[in-house]
């Protein structure tokens, strides 16, 4: 019975693991571009490595999502609300992919190899191109702002479903 009202375990686990990862990464990003403190390098190095992890996880997540049966939205929602809900999820997935991709590209074109947990290093261009760096750096920054806005909207919507509409949308992810 309960299984039918909730998303598959793999999807729920990935959702909450990535939620923690992404929120930490966004906060780390906001802090590290401002800081001159010695921990800046530590956070920056971790941010890049966890960025690769987030990229791998979102690809896995999209694959699982495409194979899994998702739950229908509550029938009480209007057509506009349903469309909004579906569109916002597409945007969230797009951001989950675009954030690590733009982050890596800005490092690549700036000729900065990315070290992953001391295990291996992602390649970088042998010559830098500052205009391409400018493009990807700005994209990465604006996407971060859009991501924060979308996450706040997503959280607000989840709480609205649970407390105001009193439907099972939030519970289906727990």
């Amino acid at each position: 019975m309960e299984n039918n009202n909730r998303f598959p375990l793999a999807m729920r686990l990935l959702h909450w693991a990535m939620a923690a990862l992404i929120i930490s990464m966004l906060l780390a990003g906001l802090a590290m571009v401002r800081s001159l403190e010695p921990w800046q390098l530590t956070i920056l190095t971790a941010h890049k490595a966890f960025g690769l992890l987030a990229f791998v996880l979102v690809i896995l997540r999209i694959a699982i999502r495409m194979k899994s049966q998702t739950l229908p939205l509550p029938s009480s929602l209007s057509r506009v609300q349903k469309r909004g809900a579906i569109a916002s999820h597409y945007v969230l997935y797009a951001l989950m992919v675009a954030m690590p991709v733009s982050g890596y590209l800005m490092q690549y074109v700036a000729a900065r190899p990315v070290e992953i947990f001391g295990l291996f290093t992602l390649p970088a261009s042998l010559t830098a191109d500052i205009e391409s760096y400018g493009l990807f750096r700005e994209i990465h920054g604006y996407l971060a702002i859009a991501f924060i806005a979308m996450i706040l909207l997503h959280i607000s919507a989840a709480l609205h479903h649970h407390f105001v509409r009193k439907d099972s949308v939030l519970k289906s992810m727990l």
Partner: protein
Amino acid sequence: MISQFLPHVVSERRCMIAALLLSLGMTTTVYASQTADTVTAQEFVDLQEGDSPHAGYRRAHAKGVCITGEFRANGNLSDIVTTPLFAPGVTPFTGRYSIAGGNPYAPDLSSPVRSLALNFALSSPNQWRIAMNTPPVMAVTNPHDFYQQIVAIKKGPEAVKAFFKDHPESKDFMTWRASYSPAGSFSGETYHSLNAFYLHDKQGNQQAVRWKMVPASAAPFDETEGPDALQERLAQQLDAAPVVYDWVFTLAGADDDENNPAVKWPASREQRVAGQIVITDWQPQLEGNCHSLNFDPLVLPNGISATEDPILRARSAAYAESYRRRAREALAGALEGERDGE
């Protein structure tokens, strides 16, 4: 549980508001912790660029010239560092000579500090940027005092005097400054790593080092004057012969603090010449490929790592902000006219 004791509507709203405030609160906490009493990367670069930034140029060391050449390693470091660059052999590099200051049109001979930066693109995942200055030590030990030092320099000689009086840690820097007289050319200066780094050997041991480039040979030049004197003299020299430096490493002793960039290490410390830096050619800075590079001293190859030196860490973070600003400006076309005009 709480909802049992409270009117239902109130608890719902409270929960929603609390959750939203928590998200927003975490973000603002991050900002607040940054702005309390520490200098941010933005504030630092704001200070460097002043009221009239030169769009598209570096915020520090804005004026310079690109160089190319090769490093001829003699293998003298092979036992203490795994980086293949130091095995006997020849490795090409690109680089940049520059003068301190944010003005890309400043007269060459007016600047008190000169710099040499190198870039070794050893392989796609293994690259090294080196940014060296003429002073062997920093006057201060952390970015906040460094900020105040620049504030004092911008205010004038009286403020500088007062600053150094308040900062006894600048003793070694002051001693160097008193004995230093600028060379007539980029090629005649000795350039220092400023900060210490660790070299790692095959066994996993680490050795803290500083290094310097010591002039080994350069062609004579005419004492041309004018705003681009150092660049003109370099061009003359390179027409005749390469400019050569010995790359000299100083190995820290047990008593040396590798995290303090203001203290000179004793002259008795072991020194090793790792080979020669041979500069063969130059290009105007907007045409050569040094323009696109951020000479971030924390882009390090395998076998070399950063110390905890707060100035070293801050250099990387501040360079990133400067690079971001000029990249954004370059993207917007700030340098198009400059290039065509040359």
